[in-house]
């Protein structure tokens, strides 16, 4: 971190954060399922200023064949940030060290819940495109991909829900935004299977004490319950308000 300490804004003022949230408050989240015509399942998530599009294809024939398994379906994931998705280093196109890492951890999270034994010799592909980023895209990506997988009808043991938690100005807070991530002390993205309470993604930048970590996980889990509700609502809406055309909702289309 070469950021001068003097550049650091105050992250917490009277218990309120930069964007006016409380420490246990999520950014506004909207989820729409089934937005792409040619994907088997898809979802679009707006999470604060993050905009993420997920598409799922499969099970389909696994190519190249030496990657096939006779026992299960191969899960693949591509997380990609659009070149226009944000400022600075995220502005470059193509896979970077970071996006390859995220593709890998997202894939591994979903390998825990997808019942891949049902489809030997096949592949299931998850594509996540970050259209706009503002900190916490991997959590938005996992949340979107989970809805897209359910929409594709791929058997899973649970929906995965992801929420980040971190430490800003010495206090634990959930769902860090970009400034909080950059200038905060610690950021910890977590993904849960809420049915069992298992952690399927557990990463951390910076340092936390044992107590802070435990408090953080509890806070994230409580917030994840709210995100899970939104995921379920989005999937339900596909059937409760059936629509023939699929579209990517533009600004305003998501308002209730």
């Amino acid at each position, binding site marked *: 971190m070469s950021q001068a300490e003097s550049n650091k804004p105050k992250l917490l003022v009277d218990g309120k954060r930069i964007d006016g949230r409380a420490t246990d408050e999520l950014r506004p989240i909207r989820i729409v399922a089934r937005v792409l015509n040619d994907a088997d399942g898809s979802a679009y998530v707006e999470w604060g200023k993050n905009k993420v599009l997920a598409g799922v294809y499969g099970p389909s*024939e696994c190519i190249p064949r030496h990657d096939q398994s006779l026992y299960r379906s191969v899960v693949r994931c591509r997380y990609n940030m659009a070149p226009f998705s944000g400022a600075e280093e995220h502005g470059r196109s193509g896979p970077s060290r970071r996006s390859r890492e995220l593709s890998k951890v997202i894939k591994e999270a979903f390998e825990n819940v997808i019942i891949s034994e049902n489809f030997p010799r*096949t592949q299931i592909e998850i594509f996540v495109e970050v259209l706009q980023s503002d900190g916490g895209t991997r959590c938005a990506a996992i949340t979107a991909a989970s809805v897209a997988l359910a929409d*594709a009808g791929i058997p*899973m043991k649970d929906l995965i829900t992801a929420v980040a938690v971190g430490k800003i100005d010495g206090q634990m807070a959930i769902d860090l935004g970009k400034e909080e991530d950059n200038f905060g002390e610690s950021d910890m993205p977590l993904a849960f*299977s809420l049915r069992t309470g298992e952690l399927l993604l557990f990463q951390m930048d910076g340092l936390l004490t044992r107590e802070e970590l435990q408090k953080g996980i509890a806070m994230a889990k409580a917030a994840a319950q709210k995100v899970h509700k939104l995921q379920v609502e989005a*999937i339900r809406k596909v059937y409760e308000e059936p629509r023939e055309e699929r579209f990517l909702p533009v600004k305003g289309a998501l308002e209730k």
Partner: protein
Amino acid sequence: MTEEKAHSPTHHSHSHQPESRIVMPGELLFDRPERISYAFIDGGKTYSTVVGLFSEGKLVPLEGPYEPLVDDLVVGLVTEVKFAGYSVDINTAYPAFLSSRETRERFEMGDTIFARITMIDEVRSIELGEARKLPAGRLVKVSSVKVPRIIGKKNSMLEMLSKQTGCEIYVGRNGYVWIAGKGNASLAEKAIRMIEVQAHTRGLTDRVAAFLKEEHGR
């Protein structure tokens, strides 16, 4: 869905859920282990694996890939002509093969056929039989889980569709629907799309009938 607002405390030992409800992957279905399809058992309890309609102890998926079974009648596209037979696309990840011995007809690449699945082996290679070429028409791809609704109870929906549009409609269990004949094929396609989107709702046959009548008058 029926809107049963009454909280009737059901004590029937067999019927756990009095009405159908949409369930999510990981949602609890039974407090006890129960072997039903599209569900799994964990810690002595039964959970759903798919987005599905759960009613009377049965779980029907609302979406999902086609799972080929022996004796399914499918619509297929000939993708390759080989020495010993034909490779056929039947909307699965697995290769389907129609041996030349199984048929007297000759097919070409791009032909559409109607066939029966005769064998599936342990690594899911599929063999077809009883194949015949379909007359000129158009292909509509739908999700295979919606196929029972397109056919309807005792063929009711399909008969109505063919009668009202004047088309010959071949519905493959795999979700490929072939619309042939001299009738109003685009109307048939519209109606099939409508059924696909509203497959989980009640009173669908009546709504499709009204739609066909209205469109027919134009």
